[in-house]
Structure formats: C-alpha cells, structure tokens
C-alpha cells in the first residue's frame, strides 16, 4: 500500500460519510486498491489499443488507428 494513499485524493471527491467514518486502515486499503486498479486500467487500455491497431486487417487499420489515437 502506498503510504500517501488517501481515499478522497484517489477518488477526487469526498466519499459518502459512512465510508469516511470507516477505520483509517480500511479507507487506505480501499484507496490503494482503487489506485492499483486505475493504473492497471491504463496499462490494459494502452495494450488493447496497441493490439487492436496491430491486429486489425490492413484495410481498416488506418481508420482504427485514427479513431483510437485521434
């Protein structure tokens, strides 16, 4: 768990009051889990985009690349 993990910081907004009232170790563990999932999501998304671009038939690769990468 990251020492600076803080649920409100990770979420970008205050969680519900009942969640804020939970013990700090519970909130910090959840914050770390969210942070890890976010990082994983970024990695997966980038990987999916790369694989999709490389894997699609050549005829539509340009369209797919433009759509995914802008």
């Amino acid at each position, binding site marked *: 768990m990251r020492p600076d993990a803080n649920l409100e910081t*990770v*979420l*970008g*907004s205050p*969680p*519900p*009051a*009942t*969640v804020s009232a*939970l*013990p700090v*170790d*519970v909130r910090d*563990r*959840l914050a770390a*889990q*969210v942070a*890890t*999932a*976010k990082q*994983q*999501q*970024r990695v*997966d*998304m980038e990987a*999916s*985009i790369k*694989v*999709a671009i490389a*894997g*699609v*038939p050549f005829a*539509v690769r340009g*369209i*797919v690349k433009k*759509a*995914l990468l*802008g």
Partner: protein
Amino acid sequence: MSPAKKAPAPTHAHSPQIGRIARLLRLDPAEVQGLDGVPDEDLRTLHDQISKTLFGDAQHQFARVAGLSRTIPGPLAGLLAEKFLPPVMAARTSEMLDPAKARDLIGRVSVNYLAEIALALDPVRSRPVVQQLPPEPIGRVAKELFGRKEYATMAEFVGTVTVEALVAALNVATPHDLLAVVPLLEWNDNLDAVIADLSHRQVIEIASSLTALELADLAMALDPSRMGPIVAAVPVDTVAEIAAALFERGEYAGMARFVDVVTPEMLHAALGVATEADLLAVVPLLGWSEQIDEVVDTLPDETLDGLFAEIALGANWAAARTALERLSATAQRRLFERFDRLSPGNQETIRAAADAGQLGPAASALMAGTSA
C-alpha cells in the same frame, strides 16, 4: 408435529454492492474488506465514484471506440471488439453506443463475451442502450449468468431492462435460480407483472422441484399476492411441511400474510402442525375471516387443552387476550368448556387473570359459567 430441520434463510456471503465494487476493481469480493456495515445506497455512490476515477480520463477513448463502430462494418466491429476490447472497457463503450448499433452488435459477439460485459455494465448509465436491445439475446445472456450464479448482478438490472426482456430472462430461470434471485430483487411494476404472469410450466416446476424448506424461503421473500399462483400449485402435505419450517423459525408475521391466499385445506394443514405456543403467537396476527373460524372451530380437543395450558403457563396476558378475542364464539365456548381439564394450578392462574380482566370480556363472561 413432525420435527422439521431448521432451514436457514438464504444468505449471501457478500453484499451485491460490494460484489460490484470488487468487480470494478478486478478483485475477489473477499478482498474488499471493511465495507460490510456501509448502507447499499452509499456503496452505490462509492461504486460510481470509483468508476468515474477509473474510467473518467478515458471517456474520450471510449467515445472514439463507440464512434468507430459506426465507421467499420458490423461483422468486423463485433470481431474486433471481442478480440481486442476487454469486457470492462467494452461495457464503458457500450454505454455510449448508438442503440441501433448496439442491437446489431449484440448478435455478432459470443454470449460469453456479452455476459462479461453485462457484469461490468452500470445499470443506470446503460439503461438507454439496454432498453433498445431485443429480448432474445438478453434471455441468452440471462441463461449464461444464471448458470454462473451471478444473481446479485442480475438483480441490479431489473429496473434497467424492458418488461419483454425481463420475461425472457426469467423464462430461462430454473426454480432454484428464482429462489436465489428473488430475495435480491427490488420490486417494481414490471417485475410484478412478470412474476404474476409466470408460465404454468414454471409455476408447476417451482412447486414440484423446490423442497418444502426452499418453498418456505421463497414464501418469506415474496409478497403473498405474487406468490399466489405458486401457492395454488403446492400440495397440501407440502404446505404442512412449509408451515412446520416457518413455525420453527418463528416466522409468525410472515406466515400470517398468507392467510388470504391459501385454501381452507391449506390453512387447516398449516395450523395442524402448530404447537400451542405457535397458535398463541400467530392467531393475534391473522386477519380474521370465516375461513379461519371454520378451521379453528375444528381444532382437536387436545390442541385446545394444550392452548389453554400454554396461556396459563406463558402468562402473556396481552397475547392471550388478543388470541381469545379473535376466536369465534364457538371456539371460545369449546375452550372454556374444557377449563376443568386444566391442572388445579393452571385453573387458578386462568381464573385470577380472568377476574382481573386480563383475558378480555368474553373470557370473563365464560369464566363466570365455569365451576369455581
């Protein structure tokens, strides 16, 4: 009364909302610890906050992927999605799809992939798209999800899908699927209509393939008006077993709700397995009717003797008064005609309570007619 093995009410290891959060975080629900006391509403809010945190930055990418589906041919779009788009991301993209495109794509990907997407969908955000989907593929996905016992997630979508889709989904449910999912459902008019309109085949299956203990669980999870067709299909002997299980659990209030939907034979069977203490507890809760009078009037003498002894020994005069006042004049008279069969000690207790007015006016009047 035959001793019925106590059946626990259906329980779920984790709250459905915690399961949703875990799925979002790609964790096992057991790994999301410490949230058990948080109300569902707050867990929903937390889920949405986490979802926004995870996917908010990538919204433009999901929108582009959704837009891509308009550019490339449907067969290729389906193939690419299933091959390259993880279900959680496909779910976010699906929420942005043009409904017509979603209708096309749903037929071009595997049921397994659709089920994974369904598990990751947000029931609220996906509603505009899901409402436009035809019922047949939803039925197929429901079958897959029932097979995986994903009851909590399915229950979340009751308010999302159309009546036709709900019919398609519940049509593929086995009786045990229904038993598992019903307690999780948030009832609405659509669900009422669908449950009230379950096929005769399903009703018979439910009544015949669930055990008495399972039917008891289902009865406690369903409103009696919704349970009506199923009740009608349950054999009287099974009703007695269900009643025995519910009496043992002390589900008196839950049982009393059913008095208007059971036949006199069923009521007779149910009250026939009640102990005297059960009778004393359940009688005050019954909405009274001639049907109940008829059943109570035919209770065996031994039951009345036991009931009278229970009143004396329990000394719960408020409950006893309510129960006695609820009895028909015939039943009251029969009961007090058997006063002499009570032990001297119990006679003394009952007489003292009646003299003090604790058993109500009818009991006091009848006591006056007994030998002092």
